[in-house]
């Protein structure tokens, strides 16, 4: 089992989720986050106060998948989140030890999907 964390541009979220649905990946957790990679921020000005603008709004997706679904998930996300500009984001794939469905107490591969 793997745990996939993806940080993407906020305006790409709807398309990424739609594509994940199409690939039968239904379970996902979404969080609004602030982040910075190599993309420079956008300066903000409030009267005489100038913000450096180093952190930008992003969206984080977290998806637990069985190993067979790792590649489809990555493909779904990259195909829809890529714009070709710096700031498109990153995907991290982590090992997942255990997964438990709270309602039924199932564990492991059945609990994931």
């Amino acid at each position, binding site marked *: 089992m793997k745990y996939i964390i993806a940080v993407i*541009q*906020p*305006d790409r979220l*709807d*398309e990424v989720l739609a594509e994940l649905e199409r690939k039968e990946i239904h379970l996902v957790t979404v969080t*609004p*986050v*602030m982040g910075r990679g190599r993309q420079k921020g*956008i*300066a*903000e*000005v*409030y009267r005489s106060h100038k913000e450096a603008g180093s*952190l930008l*709004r992003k969206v984080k997706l977290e998806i637990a998948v069985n190993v067979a679904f790792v590649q489809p998930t990555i493909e779904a996300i990259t195909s829809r989140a890529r714009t070709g*500009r710096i700031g498109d984001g990153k995907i991290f794939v982590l090992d997942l030890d255990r997964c438990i469905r709270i309602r039924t107490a199932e564990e492991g591969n059945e609990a994931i999907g």
Partner: protein
Amino acid sequence: MSAMSRASSTYWPAVLAMILVLCWGGVSLARDVETSGPGGQEPAATQVDTGDTAWVLISTALVMLMTPGLAFFYGGLVRRKNMLSILMQCFMILCLVSLQWVLFGYSLSFGPDAGGRGIIGGLDWFGLRGVGMAPFRTYSATVPHQAFMIFQGMFAVITPALIIGAFAERMRFSGFCVFSLLWATLVYDPLAHWVWGQGGFMGLLGGWGALDFAGGIVVHINAGVSALAAALVLRKRQGYPNMISPPHNLPLAVLGAALLWFGWFGFNAGSALGASGVASGAFVATHIAGATAGLVWASMDWFFHKKPTTLGMITGAVAGLAAVTPAAGFVTPIGAVLIGIGAAAFPWLAVTFLKPRMGYDDSLDAFGVHGIGGIWGVIATGLFACASLNPAVGRNGLFYGPDGAAQLLTQLKAVGISAAFSFVACLILLKVVDATIGLRVSEHEERVGLDLTQHKEAAYTLVD
């Protein structure tokens, strides 16, 4: 050297000179106002009525509040990244059009007719020359001329702000400022003159006699139809229709709608230009139409979509208030109920069926609510107007007198001409501004959001 300090060191002498010229110009213009100007100043046999004046001044403040109210109504409906752009556009219009109004907008709209055909006022009242404290009997015998002027000014401000709903989330701020100023001058001012100005060819002061108590034609049809033109010229937002996030802050939208409702008492009842029975009737009609329409829209949502929605209810209320605007001082409370029913039903259908089928992106339903609602209201005035409620005007709609059929026809003509003018004029203006300055932000700017790209600000912080 940063761009900022380079600019200021090169240009400060020019800026200083400009300020000095403006001060000198302003002082001489101000002195000019005190000496009388040409153009239709009536002999002062009219008496200022304190009750009428107090009511009109309060109404003026109420209508002013509607522009920020509209800003929050619209603002709550867009995505977070564009909230400030809506507020900024409304505030900019408040400042820009207010200035335009006192400089030449009022003169063009309400000034003595230039050319005698009822098309446009002239520049006789440029800088409010000749507009003093004595009442100007053509418009009001009991209220100071300046009070009438500033009351009308608030209408001139909110009307272009309504159009924002059509091009929300994708308009360049520079293009927006130029467009709004031109629209106020070349579309609003002429139409206001036709309906309310002395000698205007559509209205009661020497024209066809179309009834428009507080702005069904001049405000709602005008802005609503121009909004349709804007939606077609600006084209759809990226991701429309399936990938647009829902309203980011409905509570603010509700607050905005409530402020609009409150202000509408000034908009409609204030248009009676007096603390009178007509004002009272208009107040009641305004409230009842809004209440009825809110209820009907919520019911339609409940019936067709299984649940009544907050957004639907407030949209319905606003539609009802808009639709009763031309009729407020002419109809009975029951007439207001009937207007309210239509005011919810037709826009609901337009928003649910017409817009998706036609495919245009009228982002905040400016045409669907104000355009369709306004058209219904102006026609309904020709159905339900009751002469005995407003003897000074003394006209009946279809259901109240033998002259009603003719009145209905006049209303229909007014709807046709004003809608056609507003659409074509706005279309031309948009094309001109697009060709010179540019109307739409770039794809990247639209994705990042207007607040950061047009104003270098964020409405909300995420961390702290």
